[in-house]
């Protein structure tokens, strides 16, 4: 081996050391950013975070750009070991928390950054009131961009870590070998927990393919998110929605949030990994401002819908963006100075009852 090759090999080895090791992967943990727009005409879904607002908050807490890739954690969280010298991370998600080491009573709540050292073991606990949470790492996860995005699209093996959700033993490469010591940030006023308000939809594009009774049912009935829910979509249990005529149409394009109704009459809300085109009629489309809310719902949760106009939905999108910008502007240093004040955290956890052995 020549000297140059030896140096190159050493550099590769050094890069591999800068890592977070996956001790246990959780149920469905994948690398996501704000998605891969621009390739839907050739059949590539946009993918990206189910709750893009939470992803942006997690990134801001560790000083990353808003679109940096982070871990999306669904239903049940992973356990990770720090291989890098040190890392700074932040978790975003209602009710979610981090357990560092083996003391489950010393949970660190979401919406703040913290610094961990080599060898530390950290478990992510998903909250009861949100299906997903996001773990951002300062500097980002150093996986290659595929078609302009690090988002995982497992069906075609695109992006993320080897094109798939995480597995035990994976070593996630990190962009930063060390996280400098400094004061940590927190979000004093995190987004509210699961809202029970109806999810707003714009009727169409195929509302004419449904009976008037079906439209009325969609807007009045309570549906329940079934167990078949994933990043592609969530099937809803509830009253059947009757088609006016045939239930298969010649394929047309699909927008994220489209509510398609196959022959069974049971609606399916299409999410980040949905196919770009499809042949089932779509009765309505969830407004983009409510997509993060839908993304946070869990199987078994109730869901209701209310119709708004396109103009109202566009106004809601602008309002949601202003609201997120305002929230991002409130990030401030953790009051008790640098480092982690475990005594204060114990107090918070005991008082609010956030920690529960039952989860």
């Amino acid at each position, binding site marked *: 081996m020549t000297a140059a090759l030896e140096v190159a090999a050493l550099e590769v080895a050094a890069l591999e050391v800068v890592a977070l090791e996956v001790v246990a992967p959780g149920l469905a943990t994948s690398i996501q950013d704000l998605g891969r727009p621009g390739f839907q005409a*050739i*059949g590539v879904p946009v993918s990206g975070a189910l709750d893009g607002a939470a992803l942006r908050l997690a990134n801001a807490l560790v000083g990353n750009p808003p679109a940096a890739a982070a871990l999306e954690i669904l239903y049940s969280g992973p356990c990770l070991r720090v291989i890098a010298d040190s890392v700074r991370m932040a978790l975003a998600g209602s009710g979610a928390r981090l357990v560092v080491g083996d003391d489950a009573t010393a949970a660190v709540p979401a919406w703040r950054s913290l610094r961990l050292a080599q060898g530390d073991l950290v478990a992510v606990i998903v909250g009861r009131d949100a299906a997903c949470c996001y773990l951002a790492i300062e500097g980002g996860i150093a996986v290659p961009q595929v078609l302009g995005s690090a988002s995982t699209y497992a*069906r075609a093996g695109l992006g993320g870590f080897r094109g798939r959700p995480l597995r035990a033993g994976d070593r996630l490469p990190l962009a930063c070998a060390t996280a400098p010591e400094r004061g940590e940030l927190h979000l004093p006023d995190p987004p509210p927990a699961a809202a029970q308000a109806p999810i707003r939809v714009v009727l169409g594009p195929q509302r004419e393919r449904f009976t008037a009774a079906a439209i009325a049912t969609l807007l009045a009935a309570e549906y329940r998110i079934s167990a078949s829910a994933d990043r592609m979509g969530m099937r809803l249990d509830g009253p059947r929605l009757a088609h006016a005529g045939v239930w298969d149409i010649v*394929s*047309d394009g699909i927008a994220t949030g489209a509510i398609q109704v196959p022959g069974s009459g049971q609606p399916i809300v299409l999410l980040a990994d949905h196919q770009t085109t499809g042949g089932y009629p779509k009765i309505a*489309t969830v407004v983009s401002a409510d997509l993060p809310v839908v993304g946070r719902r869990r199987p078994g949760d109730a869901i209701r819908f209310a119709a708004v106009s396109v103009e109202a*939905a566009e106004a809601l999108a602008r309002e949601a963006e202003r609201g997120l910008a305002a929230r991002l502007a409130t990030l401030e240093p953790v009051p008790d100075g640098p480092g982690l004040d475990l005594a204060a955290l114990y107090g918070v956890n005991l008082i609010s009852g956030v920690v529960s052995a039952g989860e």
Partner: protein
Amino acid sequence: MRFLPAGDRALVIEFGDTVDRGLSGAVLRLAALIDVAAIPGVVEMVPTFRSLLVHYDPLSTTAAELERRIAGLAGRAPPVGRAGRSWRIPFCAEGGYAPDLAEVARRSGLACDAVVARLSAVAYHVYMLGFLPGFPYLGDLPAELALPRRADPRLRVPPGSIAIATTLCAIYPYQSPGGWHLVGTTPVRLFDIARQPPALFAAGDAVRLEPIDAAAFAALRAAVEGGEWVAESEPLRG
């Protein structure tokens, strides 16, 4: 042509509700006109058999503004110099490369050789891509090969499979479930992130299928895997 709402980030422009070359032409012409017009706020477009989905950013435009701009483009002459490509796609229909060929032959009242000859006799139009990255919907099949979908869909259709159902033909870029009849396999790689663009075909291209034997298939597959060969094409005329 009519506009249909698809939430606050997408707008459907519908030309009809059938699989039809005339509708497809109108969809692709409008997509080219919108592309050239570079309308602010348009993020991307998805042409389909009979409609165009325009994805937009509600922070920079509105559906009402897009409708106004797009209505002003409709009916204009298509931009010049944007012709697609005409592809020659080799496929093997021997034995295990075409598991449903015998059944298709039986149901259409033709010999297997005659089915392969008819599949290879037409220039298919790429109506759209969808379902999977790089997955093309090609048409129209010769009328005598039009069959409904299989009653028992397969859980695993191998990559490269050439499949037919109704009036359409498709090629699977990835292993996937599928309910169409498998009448051949191509060694060509339809989607590759190392290429620019990553999808071999674009909507509006033309595709001819050319039968090859198993030995030629093996040689071409090796050339594809070695990065020495992609597929042959020329600019589409007319």
